[in-house]
Protein backbone atom coordinates (compact mmCIF):
# COMPACT_ATOMS: atom_id res chain seq x y z
CA UNK A 1 0.00 0.00 0.00
CA UNK A 2 1.51 3.29 -1.04
CA UNK A 3 1.81 6.21 1.33
CA UNK A 4 -1.01 8.68 1.19
CA UNK A 5 -3.44 6.15 -0.18
CA UNK A 6 -6.54 6.24 1.98
CA UNK A 7 -8.36 3.13 3.04
CA UNK A 8 -8.00 0.10 5.23
CA UNK A 9 -4.70 -1.61 5.90
CA UNK A 10 -6.51 -4.89 5.58
CA UNK A 11 -5.04 -6.75 2.67
CA UNK A 12 -6.83 -8.36 -0.22
CA UNK A 13 -7.78 -12.00 0.05
CA UNK A 14 -5.52 -13.36 -2.64
CA UNK A 15 -2.43 -12.02 -0.92
CA UNK A 16 -3.13 -13.78 2.31
CA UNK A 17 -2.00 -17.30 1.77
CA UNK A 18 1.38 -18.47 2.98
CA UNK A 19 4.28 -16.21 2.23
CA UNK A 20 7.21 -17.52 0.37
CA UNK A 21 10.26 -17.59 2.55
CA UNK A 22 12.45 -14.58 1.90
CA UNK A 23 9.77 -12.63 0.05
CA UNK A 24 9.78 -8.92 0.88
CA UNK A 25 6.81 -8.06 3.11
CA UNK A 26 7.43 -4.45 4.04
CA UNK A 27 9.84 -1.96 2.53
CA UNK A 28 10.51 1.40 4.17
CA UNK A 29 12.54 3.95 2.25
CA UNK A 30 14.01 7.12 3.75
CA UNK A 31 11.15 7.57 6.17
CA UNK A 32 10.94 10.53 8.51
CA UNK A 33 8.38 11.14 11.23
CA UNK A 34 8.07 14.58 12.74
CA UNK A 35 5.85 15.02 15.76
CA UNK A 36 4.37 18.43 16.32
CA UNK A 37 4.10 18.77 20.04
CA UNK A 38 1.51 21.33 20.95
CA UNK A 39 2.81 23.38 23.84
CA UNK A 40 -0.16 25.74 23.75
CA UNK A 41 -3.00 26.57 21.42
CA UNK A 42 -0.74 28.50 19.03
CA UNK A 43 2.72 27.05 19.67
CA UNK A 44 3.93 23.88 18.05
CA UNK A 45 7.28 22.40 18.80
CA UNK A 46 8.45 20.10 15.98
CA UNK A 47 10.45 17.05 16.98
CA UNK A 48 11.87 14.47 14.59
CA UNK A 49 11.42 10.97 15.94
CA UNK A 50 12.75 9.46 12.73
CA UNK A 51 14.88 11.37 10.24
CA UNK A 52 16.00 8.93 7.59
CA UNK A 53 15.32 5.25 8.08
CA UNK A 54 15.35 2.62 5.37
CA UNK A 55 14.77 -1.06 5.92
CA UNK A 56 13.21 -4.12 4.41
CA UNK A 57 11.46 -6.98 6.11
CA UNK A 58 11.42 -10.45 4.59
CA UNK A 59 9.00 -13.30 5.26
CA UNK A 60 10.13 -15.74 7.93
CA UNK A 61 12.95 -13.66 9.31
CA UNK A 62 13.37 -12.09 12.70
CA UNK A 63 14.68 -8.60 12.41
CA UNK A 64 16.19 -6.94 15.46
CA UNK A 65 16.16 -3.19 15.85
CA UNK A 66 18.79 -1.82 18.26
CA UNK A 67 19.26 1.71 19.42
CA UNK A 68 19.21 3.71 22.61
CA UNK A 69 16.07 4.93 24.33
CA UNK A 70 14.41 7.71 22.43
CA UNK A 71 15.94 7.11 19.01
CA UNK A 72 12.57 6.37 17.47
CA UNK A 73 12.33 2.59 17.69
CA UNK A 74 8.72 2.57 18.88
CA UNK A 75 7.80 5.14 16.24
CA UNK A 76 9.29 2.84 13.62
CA UNK A 77 7.08 -0.01 14.80
CA UNK A 78 4.02 2.23 14.54
CA UNK A 79 4.96 3.10 10.98
CA UNK A 80 5.45 -0.58 10.10
CA UNK A 81 2.05 -1.40 11.63
CA UNK A 82 0.46 1.38 9.53
CA UNK A 83 -0.82 3.05 12.68
CA UNK A 84 0.84 6.29 11.62
CA UNK A 85 2.16 7.39 8.24
CA UNK A 86 5.63 8.90 7.77
CA UNK A 87 5.94 12.58 6.86
CA UNK A 88 8.63 11.84 4.30
CA UNK A 89 9.67 8.69 2.52
CA UNK A 90 7.57 5.68 1.54
CA UNK A 91 6.40 2.51 3.22
CA UNK A 92 5.21 -0.31 1.06
CA UNK A 93 3.35 -3.20 2.60
CA UNK A 94 2.96 -6.07 0.18
CA UNK A 95 -0.13 -7.35 1.96
CA UNK A 96 1.06 -8.54 5.34
CA UNK A 97 -1.03 -8.09 8.47
CA UNK A 98 0.83 -6.60 11.41
CA UNK A 99 0.21 -6.34 15.14
CA UNK A 100 2.04 -5.17 18.22
CA UNK A 101 2.61 -7.70 20.96
CA UNK A 102 1.56 -5.33 23.74
CA UNK A 103 -2.17 -5.56 23.00
CA UNK A 104 -3.16 -5.34 26.64
CA UNK A 105 -2.52 -1.60 26.52
CA UNK A 106 -5.68 -1.21 24.46
CA UNK A 107 -7.98 -3.43 26.49
CA UNK A 108 -11.35 -2.18 27.67
CA UNK A 109 -11.24 -2.12 31.46
CA UNK A 110 -14.95 -2.71 32.00
CA UNK A 111 -15.26 -5.58 29.56
CA UNK A 112 -14.56 -9.19 30.50
CA UNK A 113 -11.41 -11.02 29.49
CA UNK A 114 -13.41 -13.04 26.98
CA UNK A 115 -14.86 -9.92 25.35
CA UNK A 116 -11.44 -8.31 25.17
CA UNK A 117 -10.07 -11.33 23.33
CA UNK A 118 -12.99 -11.08 20.92
CA UNK A 119 -12.58 -7.33 20.37
CA UNK A 120 -8.82 -7.59 19.81
CA UNK A 121 -9.22 -10.49 17.41
CA UNK A 122 -11.83 -8.60 15.38
CA UNK A 123 -9.45 -5.67 15.01
CA UNK A 124 -6.74 -8.05 13.86
CA UNK A 125 -9.09 -9.13 11.08
CA UNK A 126 -10.43 -12.44 12.38
CA UNK A 127 -13.97 -13.63 11.77
CA UNK A 128 -16.15 -14.84 14.63
CA UNK A 129 -15.74 -18.47 13.53
CA UNK A 130 -11.98 -18.25 13.56
CA UNK A 131 -12.09 -16.60 16.96
CA UNK A 132 -14.28 -19.39 18.32
CA UNK A 133 -11.68 -21.84 17.10
CA UNK A 134 -8.87 -20.13 19.01
CA UNK A 135 -10.55 -18.66 22.06
CA UNK A 136 -10.21 -21.70 24.30
CA UNK A 137 -6.49 -22.02 23.57
CA UNK A 138 -6.04 -18.38 24.45
CA UNK A 139 -7.98 -18.70 27.69
CA UNK A 140 -6.10 -21.84 28.74
CA UNK A 141 -2.76 -20.35 27.92
CA UNK A 142 -3.45 -17.17 29.88
CA UNK A 143 -4.17 -19.31 32.99
CA UNK A 144 -7.03 -17.06 34.03
CA UNK A 145 -9.59 -19.66 35.09
CA UNK A 146 -12.93 -18.18 36.11
CA UNK A 147 -11.57 -14.66 35.83
CA UNK A 148 -11.99 -14.82 32.08
CA UNK A 149 -15.65 -13.83 32.52
CA UNK A 150 -14.89 -11.03 34.96
CA UNK A 151 -14.29 -7.41 33.92
CA UNK A 152 -10.64 -6.46 33.61
CA UNK A 153 -10.84 -3.94 36.47
CA UNK A 154 -10.60 -6.85 38.88
CA UNK A 155 -7.45 -8.27 37.27
CA UNK A 156 -3.96 -7.97 38.69
CA UNK A 157 -1.27 -6.45 36.48
CA UNK A 158 0.13 -9.93 35.95
CA UNK A 159 -3.23 -11.31 34.80
CA UNK A 160 -3.62 -8.50 32.30
CA UNK A 161 -0.16 -9.08 30.92
CA UNK A 162 -0.90 -12.79 30.58
CA UNK A 163 -4.10 -12.12 28.69
CA UNK A 164 -2.40 -9.63 26.37
CA UNK A 165 0.43 -12.00 25.65
CA UNK A 166 -1.85 -14.93 24.92
CA UNK A 167 -3.99 -12.90 22.52
CA UNK A 168 -1.00 -11.98 20.39
CA UNK A 169 0.60 -15.36 20.72
CA UNK A 170 -2.36 -17.25 19.31
CA UNK A 171 -3.75 -14.69 16.90
CA UNK A 172 -0.73 -14.80 14.67
CA UNK A 173 -0.46 -11.80 12.41
CA UNK A 174 1.85 -12.13 9.39
CA UNK A 175 4.26 -9.78 11.11
CA UNK A 176 4.56 -9.62 14.88
CA UNK A 177 6.01 -6.40 16.26
CA UNK A 178 7.59 -6.74 19.69
CA UNK A 179 8.61 -3.72 21.72
CA UNK A 180 11.30 -4.36 24.36
CA UNK A 181 10.25 -7.01 26.84
CA UNK A 182 9.69 -10.56 25.74
CA UNK A 183 8.26 -12.01 28.91
CA UNK A 184 5.02 -10.84 30.51
CA UNK A 185 3.36 -11.19 33.88
CA UNK A 186 4.65 -12.81 37.04
CA UNK A 187 7.95 -14.70 37.23
CA UNK A 188 6.51 -18.11 36.40
CA UNK A 189 4.54 -16.88 33.39
CA UNK A 190 7.39 -14.63 32.30
CA UNK A 191 9.64 -17.63 31.92
CA UNK A 192 6.95 -19.56 30.06
CA UNK A 193 6.09 -16.66 27.76
CA UNK A 194 9.69 -15.72 27.07
CA UNK A 195 10.43 -19.30 26.07
CA UNK A 196 7.35 -19.49 23.90
CA UNK A 197 8.23 -16.23 22.23
CA UNK A 198 11.81 -17.27 21.63
CA UNK A 199 10.57 -20.46 20.02
CA UNK A 200 8.26 -18.39 17.88
CA UNK A 201 10.99 -15.99 16.83
CA UNK A 202 13.23 -18.90 15.86
CA UNK A 203 10.36 -20.44 13.87
CA UNK A 204 8.94 -19.18 10.60
CA UNK A 205 7.01 -16.34 12.19
CA UNK A 206 8.13 -12.98 10.83
CA UNK A 207 9.11 -10.80 13.76
CA UNK A 208 10.42 -7.31 14.30
CA UNK A 209 11.99 -7.19 17.73
CA UNK A 210 12.89 -3.84 19.20
CA UNK A 211 15.27 -3.73 22.12
CA UNK A 212 18.03 -1.77 23.70
CA UNK A 213 19.38 -5.00 25.12
CA UNK A 214 21.95 -6.06 22.59
CA UNK A 215 22.14 -9.64 23.84
CA UNK A 216 18.52 -10.46 23.03
CA UNK A 217 19.01 -9.26 19.48
CA UNK A 218 22.26 -11.17 19.04
CA UNK A 219 20.77 -14.40 20.33
CA UNK A 220 17.39 -14.37 18.62
CA UNK A 221 17.57 -12.44 15.38
CA UNK A 222 18.61 -13.32 11.85
CA UNK A 223 19.30 -9.75 10.89
CA UNK A 224 19.65 -6.48 12.73
CA UNK A 225 19.18 -2.78 12.10
CA UNK A 226 20.84 -0.12 14.22
CA UNK A 227 19.12 3.24 14.51
CA UNK A 228 20.82 6.24 16.07
CA UNK A 229 19.11 9.62 16.38
CA UNK A 230 16.47 8.67 13.85
CA UNK A 231 18.88 7.49 11.16
CA UNK A 232 19.75 3.91 10.11
CA UNK A 233 23.41 3.48 10.89
CA UNK A 234 23.92 -0.13 9.93
CA UNK A 235 22.02 -3.16 8.66
CA UNK A 236 23.15 -6.76 8.47
CA UNK A 237 24.47 -9.63 10.54
CA UNK A 238 23.25 -9.23 14.15
CA UNK A 239 26.64 -9.95 15.73
CA UNK A 240 28.35 -7.28 13.63
CA UNK A 241 25.58 -4.70 14.06
CA UNK A 242 25.37 -5.24 17.80
CA UNK A 243 29.13 -4.93 18.14
CA UNK A 244 29.18 -1.64 16.26
CA UNK A 245 26.28 -0.40 18.38
CA UNK A 246 27.98 -1.37 21.65
CA UNK A 247 31.22 0.29 20.62
CA UNK A 248 29.34 3.43 19.74
CA UNK A 249 27.55 3.50 23.09
CA UNK A 250 30.86 3.09 24.92
CA UNK A 251 32.36 6.08 23.13
CA UNK A 252 29.23 8.24 23.30
CA UNK A 253 27.62 7.40 26.67
CA UNK A 254 24.72 9.80 26.10
CA UNK A 255 24.75 11.72 22.87
CA UNK A 256 21.23 12.95 23.35
CA UNK A 257 18.87 13.07 26.30
CA UNK A 258 16.32 10.29 26.46
CA UNK A 259 12.90 11.33 25.14
Amino acid at each position, binding site marked *: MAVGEAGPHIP*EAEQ*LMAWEHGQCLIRAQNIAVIYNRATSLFRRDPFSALKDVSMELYAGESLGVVGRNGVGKTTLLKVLADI*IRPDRGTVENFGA*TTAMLSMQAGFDQ*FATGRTNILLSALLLGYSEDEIKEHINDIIDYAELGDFIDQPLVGYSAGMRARLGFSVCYFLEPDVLLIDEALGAGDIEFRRKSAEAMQAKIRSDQTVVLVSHEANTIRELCDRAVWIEEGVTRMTGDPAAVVEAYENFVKVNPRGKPSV
Partner: protein
Amino acid sequence: MGIFDQKKNNQFRIVARYVYYRVKSELTAETARTYLSYVWWLLEPILTIAVFYVVFGMLFERGGEGFVSFLLLGVTAWFWFQHSISKSVTSIRKEARLMSQVYVPKYTFPLCAVTFMLFKHLFVVLVLVGMLLVIETPSVTWFFYPLIFLVQLILILALSVLVAAIVPFIPDLTLVVPPLLRLSLFLSGVFYSQEMIPAGYVHYFRYNPLAGLIMEYRKVMLYGQMPDFVYLIKIVLISSLILAFGLWLLAKLDRIYPRLNN
Protein backbone atom coordinates in the same frame (compact mmCIF):
# COMPACT_ATOMS: atom_id res chain seq x y z
CA MET B 1 -0.54 -17.50 7.96
CA GLY B 2 -3.67 -18.55 6.17
CA ILE B 3 -5.82 -17.89 9.19
CA PHE B 4 -7.29 -14.70 7.90
CA ASP B 5 -10.20 -15.06 5.60
CA GLN B 6 -10.45 -11.58 4.31
CA LYS B 7 -12.71 -12.31 1.36
CA LYS B 8 -15.81 -11.63 3.42
CA ASN B 9 -14.22 -9.04 5.62
CA ASN B 10 -14.29 -5.59 4.26
CA GLN B 11 -13.42 -2.81 6.60
CA PHE B 12 -16.94 -1.71 7.42
CA ARG B 13 -18.04 -5.23 8.30
CA ILE B 14 -15.18 -5.53 10.75
CA VAL B 15 -16.13 -2.21 12.29
CA ALA B 16 -19.80 -3.18 12.46
CA ARG B 17 -19.00 -6.38 14.34
CA TYR B 18 -16.60 -4.56 16.61
CA VAL B 19 -19.25 -1.96 17.44
CA TYR B 20 -21.82 -4.70 18.05
CA TYR B 21 -19.71 -6.61 20.58
CA ARG B 22 -18.31 -3.51 22.19
CA VAL B 23 -21.74 -1.94 22.75
CA LYS B 24 -23.15 -5.23 24.00
CA SER B 25 -20.33 -5.51 26.50
CA GLU B 26 -20.69 -1.89 27.60
CA LEU B 27 -24.42 -2.28 28.16
CA THR B 28 -23.84 -5.40 30.27
CA ALA B 29 -21.05 -3.71 32.21
CA GLU B 30 -23.13 -0.65 32.95
CA THR B 31 -26.04 -2.64 34.31
CA ALA B 32 -23.71 -4.80 36.40
CA ARG B 33 -22.08 -1.82 38.07
CA THR B 34 -25.07 -0.52 40.04
CA TYR B 35 -27.68 -2.36 42.09
CA LEU B 36 -30.66 -0.79 40.36
CA SER B 37 -29.03 -0.99 36.89
CA TYR B 38 -31.82 -0.59 34.31
CA VAL B 39 -33.99 1.28 36.77
CA TRP B 40 -31.46 4.12 36.84
CA TRP B 41 -31.85 4.64 33.13
CA LEU B 42 -35.51 5.45 33.83
CA LEU B 43 -35.00 7.23 37.13
CA GLU B 44 -32.73 9.88 35.66
CA PRO B 45 -35.36 11.30 33.25
CA ILE B 46 -38.17 10.67 35.72
CA LEU B 47 -36.43 12.66 38.45
CA THR B 48 -35.76 15.48 35.99
CA ILE B 49 -39.41 15.52 34.96
CA ALA B 50 -40.35 15.67 38.66
CA VAL B 51 -38.06 18.67 39.21
CA PHE B 52 -39.50 20.58 36.27
CA TYR B 53 -43.01 19.65 37.33
CA VAL B 54 -42.47 21.02 40.83
CA VAL B 55 -40.68 24.21 39.69
CA PHE B 56 -42.64 25.18 36.58
CA GLY B 57 -45.90 23.31 37.07
CA MET B 58 -46.46 24.03 40.76
CA LEU B 59 -44.34 27.02 41.82
CA PHE B 60 -44.61 29.07 38.62
CA GLU B 61 -48.05 27.66 37.75
CA ARG B 62 -47.03 27.46 34.11
CA GLY B 63 -47.90 23.79 33.64
CA GLY B 64 -51.52 23.40 32.79
CA GLU B 65 -53.22 20.22 31.72
CA GLY B 66 -51.08 17.43 30.30
CA PHE B 67 -47.88 18.99 31.60
CA VAL B 68 -46.40 15.59 32.55
CA SER B 69 -46.73 14.23 29.00
CA PHE B 70 -45.42 17.53 27.68
CA LEU B 71 -42.31 17.31 29.90
CA LEU B 72 -41.85 13.62 29.19
CA LEU B 73 -41.41 14.14 25.45
CA GLY B 74 -39.07 17.09 25.91
CA VAL B 75 -36.93 15.52 28.63
CA THR B 76 -36.45 12.14 26.93
CA ALA B 77 -35.46 13.76 23.61
CA TRP B 78 -33.07 16.14 25.33
CA PHE B 79 -31.47 13.42 27.47
CA TRP B 80 -30.79 11.31 24.42
CA PHE B 81 -29.14 14.24 22.65
CA GLN B 82 -27.17 15.36 25.68
CA HIS B 83 -25.84 11.93 26.65
CA SER B 84 -24.86 11.01 23.09
CA ILE B 85 -22.90 14.18 22.49
CA SER B 86 -21.10 14.12 25.83
CA LYS B 87 -20.14 10.47 25.34
CA SER B 88 -18.85 11.19 21.84
CA VAL B 89 -16.73 14.17 22.87
CA THR B 90 -14.02 11.99 24.42
CA SER B 91 -14.74 8.86 22.36
CA ILE B 92 -11.61 9.12 20.19
CA ARG B 93 -9.42 10.78 22.77
CA LYS B 94 -9.82 8.08 25.38
CA GLU B 95 -8.86 5.33 22.92
CA ALA B 96 -5.33 6.71 22.52
CA ARG B 97 -3.79 3.55 23.93
CA LEU B 98 -5.80 1.19 21.76
CA MET B 99 -5.07 3.05 18.56
CA SER B 100 -1.34 3.11 19.27
CA GLN B 101 -1.36 -0.71 19.32
CA VAL B 102 -3.42 -1.60 16.28
CA TYR B 103 -4.94 0.28 13.36
CA VAL B 104 -8.60 1.11 13.97
CA PRO B 105 -10.65 3.29 11.59
CA LYS B 106 -11.44 6.25 13.83
CA TYR B 107 -15.13 6.57 12.99
CA THR B 108 -15.51 3.35 14.98
CA PHE B 109 -15.35 5.23 18.28
CA PRO B 110 -18.12 7.86 17.87
CA LEU B 111 -20.18 5.11 16.24
CA CYS B 112 -19.79 3.02 19.41
CA ALA B 113 -20.86 5.97 21.56
CA VAL B 114 -23.95 6.77 19.46
CA THR B 115 -25.01 3.11 19.20
CA PHE B 116 -24.63 2.62 22.95
CA MET B 117 -26.84 5.63 23.69
CA LEU B 118 -29.32 4.60 21.01
CA PHE B 119 -30.04 1.31 22.73
CA LYS B 120 -30.19 2.88 26.13
CA HIS B 121 -32.58 5.51 24.85
CA LEU B 122 -34.74 2.95 23.02
CA PHE B 123 -35.34 1.26 26.36
CA VAL B 124 -36.29 4.58 27.98
CA VAL B 125 -38.58 5.45 25.09
CA LEU B 126 -40.33 2.09 25.16
CA VAL B 127 -41.15 2.49 28.84
CA LEU B 128 -41.77 6.24 29.18
CA VAL B 129 -43.32 7.09 25.85
CA GLY B 130 -45.19 3.82 26.25
CA MET B 131 -46.77 5.43 29.31
CA LEU B 132 -48.43 7.94 26.99
CA LEU B 133 -50.63 5.04 25.83
CA VAL B 134 -52.20 5.14 29.27
CA ILE B 135 -52.16 8.89 29.89
CA GLU B 136 -53.16 10.19 26.45
CA THR B 137 -55.72 9.18 23.86
CA PRO B 138 -53.93 7.51 20.95
CA SER B 139 -54.05 9.22 17.59
CA VAL B 140 -53.02 8.17 14.07
CA THR B 141 -50.33 10.85 14.07
CA TRP B 142 -48.48 8.69 16.64
CA PHE B 143 -47.17 6.70 13.68
CA PHE B 144 -44.93 9.67 12.87
CA TYR B 145 -43.06 9.31 16.16
CA PRO B 146 -40.52 6.83 14.69
CA LEU B 147 -39.91 9.20 11.77
CA ILE B 148 -39.03 12.11 14.03
CA PHE B 149 -36.97 9.72 16.13
CA LEU B 150 -34.97 8.77 13.03
CA VAL B 151 -34.39 12.41 12.13
CA GLN B 152 -33.08 13.03 15.64
CA LEU B 153 -30.77 10.03 15.32
CA ILE B 154 -29.25 11.48 12.14
CA LEU B 155 -28.79 14.84 13.86
CA ILE B 156 -27.11 13.17 16.87
CA LEU B 157 -24.85 11.05 14.67
CA ALA B 158 -23.70 14.06 12.65
CA LEU B 159 -22.86 16.21 15.66
CA SER B 160 -21.25 13.29 17.51
CA VAL B 161 -18.90 12.48 14.65
CA LEU B 162 -18.00 16.14 14.29
CA VAL B 163 -17.15 16.75 17.95
CA ALA B 164 -15.29 13.45 18.22
CA ALA B 165 -13.15 14.41 15.22
CA ILE B 166 -12.29 17.89 16.46
CA VAL B 167 -11.81 17.45 20.22
CA PRO B 168 -8.52 15.46 20.08
CA PHE B 169 -6.93 18.49 18.39
CA ILE B 170 -8.41 21.05 20.76
CA PRO B 171 -8.79 19.21 24.10
CA ASP B 172 -10.00 22.46 25.71
CA LEU B 173 -13.33 21.86 23.98
CA THR B 174 -14.14 19.12 26.49
CA LEU B 175 -14.68 21.99 28.93
CA VAL B 176 -16.84 24.01 26.53
CA VAL B 177 -19.24 21.26 25.49
CA PRO B 178 -20.95 20.57 28.86
CA PRO B 179 -22.09 24.19 29.41
CA LEU B 180 -23.28 24.30 25.79
CA LEU B 181 -25.33 21.16 26.37
CA ARG B 182 -26.78 22.72 29.51
CA LEU B 183 -27.66 25.78 27.46
CA SER B 184 -29.43 23.50 24.97
CA LEU B 185 -31.68 22.35 27.81
CA PHE B 186 -32.87 25.91 28.36
CA LEU B 187 -33.05 26.93 24.71
CA SER B 188 -34.83 23.88 23.34
CA GLY B 189 -38.19 24.27 24.98
CA VAL B 190 -37.86 21.19 27.15
CA PHE B 191 -40.07 22.72 29.85
CA TYR B 192 -41.84 25.48 27.92
CA SER B 193 -43.63 25.72 24.62
CA GLN B 194 -43.03 27.97 21.65
CA GLU B 195 -46.09 30.04 22.56
CA MET B 196 -44.47 31.18 25.80
CA ILE B 197 -41.58 32.99 24.13
CA PRO B 198 -41.89 36.52 22.68
CA ALA B 199 -43.10 36.42 19.07
CA GLY B 200 -39.96 38.17 17.82
CA TYR B 201 -37.78 35.27 18.93
CA VAL B 202 -39.85 32.39 17.56
CA HIS B 203 -38.10 32.70 14.22
CA TYR B 204 -34.68 32.12 15.84
CA PHE B 205 -36.07 29.41 18.09
CA ARG B 206 -36.83 27.36 14.97
CA TYR B 207 -33.17 27.52 13.95
CA ASN B 208 -32.40 25.23 16.88
CA PRO B 209 -33.01 21.74 15.46
CA LEU B 210 -33.43 20.18 18.89
CA ALA B 211 -36.12 22.71 19.81
CA GLY B 212 -37.84 22.05 16.49
CA LEU B 213 -37.73 18.28 16.93
CA ILE B 214 -39.12 18.45 20.47
CA MET B 215 -41.98 20.51 19.09
CA GLU B 216 -42.61 17.96 16.33
CA TYR B 217 -42.71 15.14 18.91
CA ARG B 218 -45.37 17.04 20.85
CA LYS B 219 -47.36 17.88 17.74
CA VAL B 220 -47.74 14.25 16.73
CA MET B 221 -48.03 12.75 20.21
CA LEU B 222 -50.10 15.30 22.11
CA TYR B 223 -51.95 17.54 19.66
CA GLY B 224 -52.78 15.05 16.90
CA GLN B 225 -51.15 17.28 14.28
CA MET B 226 -49.12 16.27 11.24
CA PRO B 227 -45.37 16.90 11.47
CA ASP B 228 -43.74 19.68 9.44
CA PHE B 229 -42.14 17.53 6.73
CA VAL B 230 -40.23 20.37 5.09
CA TYR B 231 -38.64 21.22 8.43
CA LEU B 232 -37.67 17.57 9.03
CA ILE B 233 -36.15 17.25 5.56
CA LYS B 234 -34.11 20.40 6.18
CA ILE B 235 -32.69 18.89 9.38
CA VAL B 236 -31.84 15.65 7.56
CA LEU B 237 -30.08 17.52 4.74
CA ILE B 238 -28.03 19.78 6.98
CA SER B 239 -27.17 16.88 9.29
CA SER B 240 -26.03 14.79 6.33
CA LEU B 241 -23.71 17.56 5.23
CA ILE B 242 -22.24 17.83 8.73
CA LEU B 243 -21.92 14.04 8.90
CA ALA B 244 -20.15 13.91 5.53
CA PHE B 245 -17.77 16.63 6.66
CA GLY B 246 -17.07 14.85 9.96
CA LEU B 247 -16.41 11.52 8.26
CA TRP B 248 -14.17 13.24 5.73
CA LEU B 249 -12.19 14.82 8.59
CA LEU B 250 -11.86 11.46 10.34
CA ALA B 251 -10.64 9.76 7.15
CA LYS B 252 -8.22 12.56 6.40
CA LEU B 253 -6.77 12.53 9.93
CA ASP B 254 -7.06 8.76 10.45
CA ARG B 255 -3.33 8.25 11.00
CA ILE B 256 -2.75 11.58 12.69
CA TYR B 257 -4.79 10.83 15.84
CA PRO B 258 -2.36 8.17 17.14
CA ARG B 259 0.39 10.81 17.02
CA LEU B 260 -1.36 13.34 19.18
CA ASN B 261 -0.38 12.02 22.57
CA ASN B 262 3.28 11.85 21.78
